[in-house]
């Protein structure tokens, strides 16, 4: 298979075996070699069948790129510091010309231009989990605090809730969210709201517990807080998967995890699994051991391996190198809806096309609220032009983007109204 590689204005052509493409590392070295840019940090991208510019930064997306390239794999190389993040995915010029535009209403077009950060800057902020096992009126929300400067940012209070019991409706004491801190994590996810009733904290029911106890439980779990709430607004509930499509949702979810694995293991160890798998080094303590051989005042702290690992999570998880931490490829807006499909698989069968535009609208609004924090990347707009020409057309069938990473799924496990 032929590869057309473009770095700046230089083209290189070479070929790789389509069926045995090898590892990403090798490919990366090969690229460096053919362009003679051995000592440079570069970002490799390719134009996929939809005409989107997608990154190649791990074995999986390399494999994907090779397998979908037809007949030519177009590779674009940018220097790390010059990368125009906004050029990836969502901002291909072709998009505007294509049929997708007609799917959307005018509001979308007038939407402010948002820029999406590079995958390595992505990290999960919150997610809806256990949709398949919870009653539809409940929502289990996970807040990822690690690596975030934001406060968790909400308050709880005592209150009364009405429960259906064998003796009819009964008023029972309950715990409710009383306030959101503006700009806090809880508010920014959009998954929790004032007057939502808190039912569980990290899998433990709060009934019979005092406000102070629940507060302490939440704070004790603050590094990875999972709250099950009964939202006060029941109109935005996730509707459970029907029998037909449930499995597909599951499988797509698991396959999607391929795109996002190393972030979870290296920088965000507790991104996956619930709740027992959380016992990871995310929580591990910082240990500084002085060398006592020379008892000088110098705090010659030989940092143990535990320490380095822990301090990383402590020090707000520095952005991992692209090599070991490829993020999910950013998605064009049309794909955003598929993200929802992955997290709420039920939608596949319920309304594949009918309410798509509405969903898109909603998703994009939510996305906007999430992505705006990553919008401060210096964009090098000039270099985009050549890229955009090459990008091919976009397909509207969302099922083709199965390679969507799990991390992304969790990241914007959005609220869908039907």
């Amino acid at each position, binding site marked *: 298979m032929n590869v057309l590689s473009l770095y700046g204005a230089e083209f290189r052509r070479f070929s790789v075996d389509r069926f045995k493409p090898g590892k990403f590392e090798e490919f990366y070295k090969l690229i460096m070699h053919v362009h003679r840019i051995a000592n440079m940090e570069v970002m490799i991208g390719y134009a996929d069948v939809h005409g989107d510019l997608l990154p190649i930064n791990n074995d999986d997306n390399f494999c994907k790129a090779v397998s979908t390239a037809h007949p030519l794999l177009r590779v674009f190389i940018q220097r790390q510091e010059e990368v125009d993040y906004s050029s990836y995915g969502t901002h291909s010029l072709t998009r505007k010309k294509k049929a997708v535009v007609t799917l959307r209403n005018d509001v979308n077009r007038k939407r402010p231009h948002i820029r999406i950060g590079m995958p390595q800057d992505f990290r999960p902020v919150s997610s809806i989990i256990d949709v398949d096992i919870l009653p539809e009126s409940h929502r289990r929300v996970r807040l990822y*605090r690690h690596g975030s400067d934001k*406060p*968790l*940012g*909400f*308050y*709880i*209070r*005592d*209150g009364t809730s009405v429960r259906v019991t064998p003796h009819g409706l009964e008023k029972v004491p309950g715990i409710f969210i*009383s*306030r959101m801190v503006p700009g806090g994590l*809880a508010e920014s996810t959009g998954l929790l709201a004032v007057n939502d009733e808190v039912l569980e*904290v*990290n899998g*433990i029911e709060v009934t019979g*517990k*005092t*406000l*102070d*106890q*629940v*507060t*302490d*439980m*939440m*704070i*004790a*779990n*603050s*590094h990875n*807080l999972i709250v099950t709430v009964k939202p006060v607004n029941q109109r935005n509930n996730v509707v459970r998967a029907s029998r037909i499509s449930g499995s597909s949702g599951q499988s797509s979810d698991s396959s999607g995890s391929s795109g996002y694995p190393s972030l979870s293991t290296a920088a965000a160890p507790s991104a996956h699994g619930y709740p027992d798998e959380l016992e990871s080094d*995310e*929580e*591990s*303590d*910082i*240990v*500084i*051991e*002085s060398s*006592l*051989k020379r*008892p000088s005042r110098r*705090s010659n702290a030989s940092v*143990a391996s*535990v320490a380095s690992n*822990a301090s990383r*999570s*402590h020090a707000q998880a520095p952005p991992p190198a692209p090599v070991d931490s490829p993020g999910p490829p950013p998605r064009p807006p049309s794909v955003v809806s598929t993200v929802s499909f992955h997290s709420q698989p039920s939608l596949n069968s319920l309304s594949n096309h009918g309410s798509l535009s509405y969903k898109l609208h909603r998703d994009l609004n939510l996305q906007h609220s999430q992505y705006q924090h990553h919008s401060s990347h210096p964009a090098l707009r000039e270099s985009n032009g050549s890229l955009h020409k090459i990008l091919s057309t976009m397909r509207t069938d969302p099922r083709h983007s199965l390679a969507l990473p799990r991390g992304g799924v969790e990241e914007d496990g959005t609220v869908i109204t039907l």
Partner: protein
Amino acid sequence: MKRFRRHGQESHRDRIKQELYQFNKTVEHGFPHQPSALGFSPSLQLLAIGTRSGAIKLYGAPGVEFMGLHDENAAVTQIHFLPHLVELVTLLDDNSLHMWTLKAHKGVSELLEIGRFTLTGPPGAPPSVTRVTAVLAHSSGELLLLGTEGGHVFVVEVPGFRELEERNISLEIVTHSIPEEYGGRRSLEHVESLQENPANPQQVLIGYGRGLMVIWDLDCQSAVKHILATQPLESVWWTEDGLRVLSSHSDGSYCRWSVAGLDTQSEQEKSEVPYGHFPCKAISKVIHVTLVLFSPPLRSSPPFLLFSGGMPRASYGDRHCITVIHSKTHVALDFTSRIIDFFVIRDGPDQAGEPSALVVLVEEELVVIDLQTEGWPVIQTPYLVPLHCSAITCSHHVSAIPLKLWERVLSAGALQNTHYSKKPWPITGGLNLSPDPPQRDLLLTGHEDGTVRFWDASGVCLYPMYKLSTAGVFHTDADPNDNMNQCTEGEWPPFRKVGCFDPYSDDPRLGIQKIHLCKYSGYLTVAGTAGQILVLELNDESAEQAVEATVADLLQGQEGFRWKGHTRLEVREEPVLFPPGFQPFALVQCQPPAVVTALTLHSEWKLVAFGTSHGFGLYDYQQKNNVLVRCTLNPSDQLAMEGPLSRVKSIKKSLRQSFRRIRRSRVSLRKHHLQDANARLEAELAEMELAPVQRKIEARSSDDSFTGLVRTLYFADTFLSDSSHNTPSLWAGTNGGSVFAYQLRLPSVERRAEDLVTAHPAKEIQLMHRAPVVAILVMDGHGSPLPEPLEVAHDLARSPDMQGSHHLLVISEEQFKVFTLPKVSAKMKLKLTAIDGSRVRRVGVAWFGSSCSEDYGESGLTVLTNQGDLHVVSLPGVKMQVHHPCIRREDVSGIASCVFTKHGQGFYLISPSEFERFSLSARCVVEPRSLVEVPHQTPTSLSRAQPDGASEYRYEQPERSSARRVMEHALLNDESEYLRNPVDKLSPV
């Protein structure tokens, strides 16, 4: 199959747990909070105290204690024992009557409520008709006479509480029997007093509030005599011969009336206002004891007259006095708090002999005065000791005190108690059946006035042993010559101060915050509110010495802070004379002088470690210098730096703000319509009231306040740098979840006095969950906690296993976490807060012996949470074993005061003056076991020795209280065991 086996293992473990752990609240030590009633049974020799919370407590001989609680949460207003029976009747604030009895069950008496009764009046009658104001338990033991607010007297048959309507003494009948001109149209008011004629049980005296007294004959159902007093009646006393009646009145007078004649109207013999001339307060109770000596040698002893109150209103109206007049002696006993009630104990088989003791219950203590010894000294109480004579600020428990130290503390204490009477404790009812305490335990309480009190906590009675005062080291405003028994000559009334309750601290900086006693060496360290740390040594001789002070600058050059709290205590430069006992020889003063929050002492290394909210230090008390000072302060933590006053200021500030807000709304009030604004204000107020309590959910950060506060300090000889050499080490844990470990280098024993001790930072651990570290513990290769210093040297503990690897257990408020040593890596943990939302407040290491097999036991952690629950966590596996709710979670001071023993028991304050003792151990339980038996009905048959304590047989017991006897026994036991097996003794492993 596998499942079956596992099940088998679990049930096996469950059985072991049952053998090891058992939760009991065993006994309450100290003085009942807010006592409201006092009762005494001369035949049972039992004292009963009722409290405002509805508790009733019975006390006899030391160790004989019973407790009951009324279901109603109403104050006990009166307690009456049924004469010659084991029943007693209580009257509560809610007008209900309760019958209690002491029932023997399996050889041990229990206090049980057997009946309750509320007087019901005729239909339509006002509630005052049946509101009980006076109770008389008739000597027949079958009748109860109830005087009411309406002036009627109801007769009730007991124990069944059957109303005998036909015998009721209605106000109408009484009114008819008295002269017209006295009765008039005015009401006689309520029944103030009911008294039985000691010489004729059929005659009962009814005293009405207005002053009228009527002698009623129960047999012929008619009034026999009447006494027309003109002053409102306070109390009535019928002399023993039945010939005279004393009445006390609200104008401060008492009268004596002769009721011997046949006239229907008795005449006044004497009327006196003892502290007269100027208006006086009421005499609330009067007692007159005359000796009727039938047997030779006939001698007449002058009577005792005792009354409470009657003080001149203007000059001494605020005093709480009982006046005792005997022959030429006249003393006004000046008590520390309000007098609840008092009675006199008399010698002799049927309580007809000489008065031996005056028992006074005042609001804050029980005072017993020896009336037979010259000068009427106070008898030290073996129980009901006011723990709170100065407020308790901390406590420390030391188990299994070596005999030597015990004796020395006892003898030092004996020298302090010379002003007490030598007489034995006069209340001797019941038989103490509890086994001898297995060991000698000390409870040390630190008080606000800078004293440390040593209590014998081995048995059921918390007995005061010794009192240490640290105030002498410092210059304070206190008057050193503040003598309790000061009495200026010629003063009238002749006051004499009695009692030890003195809650007024001269200088709050003196307050004791932390105590650590080494039971083997007799070294004690105490630390206080103003950052003072004293090191004391037990000395049997008095010594005059100056205490050398060393300043520890915990800020270590941290800048930008201003201490706004109290100043350092000023040390006396000149030598101070210290009495025998614990004598201070070294003093460290922290700078800034913040309250000491952690303290520990290692007597083998002669080091003391201390911590405050700013840092911690290590002091060498042999060379008297600081080895190490470490600042733990977070530079952004202003609150910790500014000291306690700034917080007050911030409250002030917020108050000011809220006032401003109100003012602002008042301004708007003028502008707008008044009503309008009012409505808005009301709405605002309503909103404020409705605004729910909310809690912020936020992860802890290093910027939180008081993260640098040192919570715990720990000495350990363990593997800090490599796994082949163990070294002394110091561990410190802070509020912010940090642990600091220092390796200590001690010079050899020969060079100990010259060469410096050095400390080098070895490790720092930052717990990611940042919860406060409440305890640190190192476990040896076998998983047992390291022994205390000198414990091994005294052959009282097995030396720790130094072959296997040691483990570090860090207990934070949220989790128990085990790390390996010397390389610190997390091994296992137990989460508490994440699971049930409770946080560790108190933790102790305890040894739990099996109740079934003598040689099996396990060590574990006893844990008290902020929810008031007790947990046992196994060691070294940190697994939850049992948990029991113990303290109400609202009872913050109770939770904060909890202290654990080394054998699975504990104490916590249920009121400022009472410790509740509890036990989590199945083997180690200290609880009262005592027997009270029904005395014989006729006093003449008392020649037989009875175990109930009513007889002279018991009364003639040796001079010592039984608690002391028990102790002596224990000492002897201990000694003999020492001789027999000096190695194994008391070793918990």
